[in-house]
Structure formats: C-alpha cells, structure tokens
C-alpha cells in the first residue's frame, strides 16, 4: 500500500477550509495542514511537505501568487492547485506563472475537486478550458509585445492547436483522436506550454532580483 496523498488547504475562511478538508478526507486524502494566510502557508508547507496545496487567491496578508511562490520555495516538490472565484482570472494567470500547476473555480463540485487534486498529485496540470484560454492569450500577448531579452517563449503550432482545443472544452482523449496522436502526446504538449511560461517567469524574476540587488 502506498501512503495517501497529503494535502494542505489554504483559505482565510474557516468554514470553507473545513468543508473542503472533509470532502478530501472522505475521498481518501490526508489533510496534513490548513493555513489562513501567506505566512502560515509558507511555514506549514516547510514543516509538512504536502504533495498538493489547495490555494485560495485572496488572503489577508497577500495574494495567492505570493503564497504560491513562498510555498514552492519552502517545499519545492509540492504542487499547487489554485482554487479561485471566477472573476479572478488575471490573478490566476499570475499564480500559474509563479508555478501553480492548475486551477479550479470554487463552485466546482466535490467530485471535480477530488479528481483535480488526484491529477495534480500525479503530476498532471489541471488545465480547465478557462486556464487554456488565459495561457493562449498570454502567449499571443507576448508575441505581439516588443522583443525582449531573453526572448519571450513561443508556442509551436501544434502546442497552439492543442491549447485551442482544450480551451474549447475538448477532453484530452477527444483531442488525441482529432489530431491522430496519443493521449500522452496531448498531455505533454499541454505540460510544455505551462513549463515554458513558468520558466520564462523565473528568468524574469531572477533578472529583476539581480537588477535590484536582491540576490545578495
């Protein structure tokens, strides 16, 4: 038997934390910690090293993006799944660029939530159509922005095609059938789009840190 997947729930609302924790426990996950803010999330992630962190976007002492950065710095193997309200899309994109592996709206059902935590723990990006639309738009925005050093990441035509189909709500299997490739190939294209975005963001942050002398 393998150990159950460990999860930390970050949200400033106690009732929400309890309800989500109960759903997760019922589905066989081990909720090893909860946190109500950026600072507590970072210290508890360092102490408990959870497999998955469920992250709210609006915290009393910062944003979900801040918390994602600090959690991943404290516990690099942890995967962050953002759980947000539907109007926070642009913030979600920032969190994903900061390293979150996916996002789900808070109104998703308990079944959708547990399925998403399971795929996140398995190392898959939870790519809802909404997130695919944001990432697609972000690549397009970068391609029309003035050239920068280092050059902004670009999508291959195939990756763009896959993202468009995900954004249109097709499941990985349907996309695989349409494009005549394997299910795995579709998954890896999707992963690649996120990884390039996160890598570019890290390079950007590092350069910023060097320029402002924060690396000393």
């Amino acid at each position, binding site marked *: 038997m393998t150990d159950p997947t460990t999860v930390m729930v970050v949200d400033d609302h106690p*009732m*929400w934390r309890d*309800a*989500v924790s*109960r*759903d997760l426990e019922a589905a066989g996950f081990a909720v090893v910690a909860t946190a109500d803010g950026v600072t507590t999330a970072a210290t508890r992630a360092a102490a408990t090293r959870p497999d998955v962190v469920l992250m709210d976007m609006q915290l009393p002492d910062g944003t979900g993006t801040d918390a994602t950065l600090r959690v991943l710095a404290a516990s690099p193997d942890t995967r962050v799944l953002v759980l947000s*309200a*539907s*109007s926070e*899309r*642009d913030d979600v*994109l920032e969190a994903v660029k900061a390293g979150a592996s996916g996002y789900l709206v*808070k*109104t998703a059902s*308990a079944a959708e939530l547990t399925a998403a935590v399971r795929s996140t723990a398995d190392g898959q990006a939870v790519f*809802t*159509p*909404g997130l*695919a*639309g*944001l990432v*697609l*738009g*972000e690549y*397009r*925005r970068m391609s*029309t922005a003035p050239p920068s050093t280092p050059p902004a990441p670009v999508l291959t035509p195939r990756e763009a095609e896959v993202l*468009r189909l995900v*954004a*249109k*709500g097709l499941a990985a299997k349907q996309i695989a059938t349409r494009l005549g490739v394997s299910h795995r190939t579709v998954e890896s294209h999707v992963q690649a789009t996120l990884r390039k975005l996160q890598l570019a963001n890290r390079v950007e942050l590092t350069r910023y840190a060097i320029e402002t002398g924060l690396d000393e």
Partner: protein
Amino acid sequence: MTAQPTPEEDPLRPLWRAAQVFRVASFGYAVAVEITSARDYAHPYLSWALVAVEAAWTGVAVVALTLGWHRRAVVAVELALALLLVLSSWVVSPRAFWVTHESLPTTLWCANVVVSFGLLWGPLAGAVVGLVVALAVNLVSSQLTDPPWRDASVPVLVTIGFVLGVLARTATRANDQLRAAVEQRAATEERERLARQVHDGALQVLALVARRQGAVDAELAAMADEQQRALRGYLSQLPAPSPDAPVRAATTHRATLAGTLDVAAALTDLESSAIRVSVPPGPVRLDSHRAEELVAAVHAALHNVAVHAGPEAVAYLLVEDLDEEVVVSVRDDGPGIPQGRLERAAREGRLGVRQSIRGRLAAVGGTAELTTTDGEGTEWELRVPRARGGAR
C-alpha cells in the same frame, strides 16, 4: 494603464496666471511712459504718487488673483481704482497734454480690469466693463465729441473683455464635463467591482451550503445548488438554459472607454455550469456596435444550444484577440446535427436563428461559420474584424 486626464480644482488658474503676466508687463509700460512724460505734467510728484498706488495695487492683485483670494472683491475694487486713475489725467497734466495723449498714469494698465471681469463674470460682463473703461479713456482725452468708435480703445477693450469671458466659460465647461465623465467612470467601476464581489461571495456561500449539507439534507443541498445556478444566470442576464426558456439577446452594457466595449467581460458574465467561458487575460475591446452584434450573435448561438443540444449539453465559449480581428467560438458537446437536417430545414425555410447569426456578423463585416458532425456537437466560429484605426 493609459494616462487619464484629471479635472482641475480651479480650471481658470492658468488663465489667471497668464493675465497677471500681462498685468506686470503693462505696469512696466505705464512706468516707462511716466518716465518720459513726467516733465510735461503739471504735477509730476502727484503723478509719481499715483504710479506708486498703481504699483502697490499691482502687487496686491497679482498675489490675490493668482492664488484665488477674494477675487470678486479685488476685481470690484480694481474697477473703481482704474477709473479714478484714468480720470486723474485731468489733475496731473495740463489740458493741452491730456487731450492728445494716453490716459495717465494708467495707459495700457487699465485693460487689466477688463480681463479680470471677463474671466470672473463671463463675456457680457467683460464687454460691458470694456465699454465703461474705454468711454472713461475717451472722456479723458475729450474725444466724446467724436463718435467713440473712431478711437481704437472701444473695440479693443470690448473685444478683450468678451473674448476672455468666452474663453473662461469654455474652459470651465470643459472641465465640468471632464469631471462628470471621470466621476461616472469611477461610479461604474465601483458598481462593477461590488457586483463581482457580491456575485463571488454569494456563489461561494451557496457552493459551501451545497457541499456541507450534501450528507445531512440532500434537499437543502439541491436547493442551494439550484440557487447558485439561478444567480449565475440572473447576473449574466441569461436565464439558466432550459429548452424552452427564451433568451434575451440583450448585451450587458459595460461601455468602458468611450465607444468601446470589453467583449471578454461581457461574455465572462455568461459563465455557468452549462456555459464555460475562456478568455485571454485583460480586456478585449471592440467598438460598441461591433461588440454588441457579436455578443448578440453569441446569445443566439447559446439559445440554439439550449434548444437543440439537450439539457445535459455544456457550451464552451472561447474568446481570442488576434489584433486584426476578434474570434469567438461557441462549441457544444451535444449530439450535433444529423446529416441532411440542415438541408431539410433550409428547404422548409426554418433557418431563422442561423440566418440571424450570419446576418449580424455580416452587418459588421465579419463571418460566421457553423461546423457540425453527427455525434460530436456543433461549433460556431464568429469572426469580427476590428474597426479601422484599431480600438484596442
């Protein structure tokens, strides 16, 4: 963020400041005239004393009018003072001199009060005071026997007063309009922000109730879930999709920048468990007319999904901003349209909704394409070119 024009606290301040530059310059001119003419005066010391009064008043007026202290009182006192100084020509110089020369010791300086009246009370007051001062100048130089318009003072001073009055009115009005526009935009943004918060808050509570009550009271959980859907539907001005619910093809009026509409925001409002919306980060602006036609076409396509794709079908909206054009795809995961049904409907003249979608797009120079496969749902691709000049 683009730089926003901000309304001035005192829109006339720049005009008042410029007027004080003229005041100081015109006083310099009056002093120069005094220096060259004082020896011809009957009472040179008195004339110098009057120039000193003029100097003192120039100082007071420059400070008070620039900073906006008691402008009305200062300008009223100045009118009396300017008239007295003009008329003092009779006292300081012999008759033979003042009938042929400029009024002393004011000369050009007397135009300042005309400027101030125009700025303070508008074109009519400016013109009237211009006329009064010009007549006083003419009176001093005994030209009233001639028609006053023979002398340049009357048209010049009346025009100064009138033009500055118009200028001040225009500046004030423009500033008021700017202020109103800025206030309205702030109010709209605040309303939208509150609506989003209420929306998110209420939806989360309902989702929470549905989640917690699921084990205890299935009926209450179902009600909360239903309310959550209803609220989403209500907020998006679109009834929760049901086969016979009429769709109100109204656009949500999120006019933001003058004449443009954020298509992404308007369509994000449609998000529900039956409608999933994907948009790029940031606003997707189109000029209002094109945006409204596009949003109305999306509503019509969603209506078709609700009617034809069955109660379980989910519609997926994807908004893409391609610089030259905006593309919205509306896909459903319903059974699709069986082969031959479209052709049959066309023969029977039952293509109403499809024609209306195509018509709306064609009217704004765009295209609408429908693809469907039996068993794989239907997909509309709606393309709208951006307005000439690119409203981004």
